């Protein structure tokens, strides 16, 4: 079986970078555009993300996730870091636009990786409040405090929903890690 793109990058194969951009360029760009408002920010972030991908390629473990999910993980980390450093904060007192995203939009989702399909299934099994908190946090990039402001939930409740939701989703995806028993 041919080596994965990330393995080839880890071995210093420069050509694999072009393959990586062919395969994952659009995906990373789309994630950045979804989470960052400014096109310039997104462009800078995507460049940083790909450098992170090259630096971390050797950490990819095909027994733990697909390449797609691993790359999406690196993308999210870099984007979250940028958001945190920019001190982006919600400044207005009305948040209906953030909350108004329809919950059930499965018909418009695209199947990107096996884990993505399984994650969609896992999300559907969570309590509505857990789904809402995870979507606002992971998809919209809001902090727990911002979610508390948006939803009117106490901060502690937001944290509880976030933790239980993500641990439960992790368990359903079959990913192992610390804190398994706390997922119930």
């Amino acid at each position, binding site marked *: 079986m041919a080596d994965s793109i990330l393995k080839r990058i880890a071995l210093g194969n420069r050509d694999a970078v072009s393959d990586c951009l062919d395969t994952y360029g659009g995906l990373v760009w789309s994630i950045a555009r979804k989470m960052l*408002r400014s096109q310039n920010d997104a462009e800078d972030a995507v460049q940083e993300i790909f450098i992170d991908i090259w630096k971390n390629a050797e950490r990819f473990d095909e027994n733990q996730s697909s390449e797609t999910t691993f790359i999406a*993980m690196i993308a999210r980390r870099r984007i979250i870091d940028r958001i945190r450093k920019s001190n982006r904060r919600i400044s207005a007192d009305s948040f209906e636009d953030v909350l108004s995203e*329809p919950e059930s939009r499965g018909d418009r989702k695209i199947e990107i990786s096996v884990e993505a399909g399984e994650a969609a299934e896992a999300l559907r099994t969570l309590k509505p409040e857990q789904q809402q908190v995870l979507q606002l946090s992971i998809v919209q990039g809001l902090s727990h405090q911002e979610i508390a402001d948006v939803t009117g939930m106490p901060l502690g409740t937001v944290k509880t929903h976030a933790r239980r939701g993500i641990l439960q*989703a992790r368990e359903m995806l079959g990913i*192992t890690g610390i804190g398994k028993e706390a997922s119930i």
Partner: protein
Amino acid sequence: MSELEERLLDLLEKRTFDGLTPAEERELSELNATDDVSLDLTAAAISLAQLEKVEPMPVHLRSRIESAADEHFTQKVSQSGSVRTVRESNTGWWNWFGWALAGAACIALAANIYLTRVNPPLAAGPGPTPTPAPVQITPEQQRAQLLASASDIAKANISAGKESYVPSGDIVWSDAKQAGYMRFHGLPANDPSKATYQLWIFDQTQDKATPIDGGTFDVDANGDVVVPINPRLHATEPEMFAVTMEKPGGVVVSKREKIAVLAKVETQKS
């Protein structure tokens, strides 16, 4: 769960949702838990599950990244102390390249002789298809492609907002492709460190008080700009667009203190 495990979980969870401060990074490293990426992978899978479309990366950005790759891999080789190997490798590659070039030249010469002999020069027909060089597609060209490929284009002409200047231009939008472009002339340049322009989309699904965030953009001294629209939410049959001036990075909800542009949708192809 032990206190230590509880703390570990706190840090891993914070890394997943909000990112860690340098001090927290160090703490996680000291706890030897940096490699536990289980929550990050879960969040990544959820974010992929919520992605509605994959847009192509802009060509100019790809070029930038390819250049960065060249630099990165060169540095990596230098830092790993294997310069000699690379030189040897390069020498070998150049030797191979030289032979390949000579071979290619012979083939090209033979082909040229053959084609010249068989066909008159002007009736030779199409030659081998050249490999297209990467072409940078400007937003203007992307806009033209959208207009050519989408059958549901809604169009809105720009009118002045509540500021002293009178910009012109138009906005086009396709529901099916969830893509659109703004074209402006006469918008004043903004200082990105102080303020940015932000688009708002008023569509059928949103309350008028909370339009969809269409993304931020900057205008330079030229004043002419074509900007892709990137809505944060799915937009359905927009009725109106507005551009406000906001703080750098944009806002979630505009106070509408500085409305630069208004554009009411006038035509929608069925």
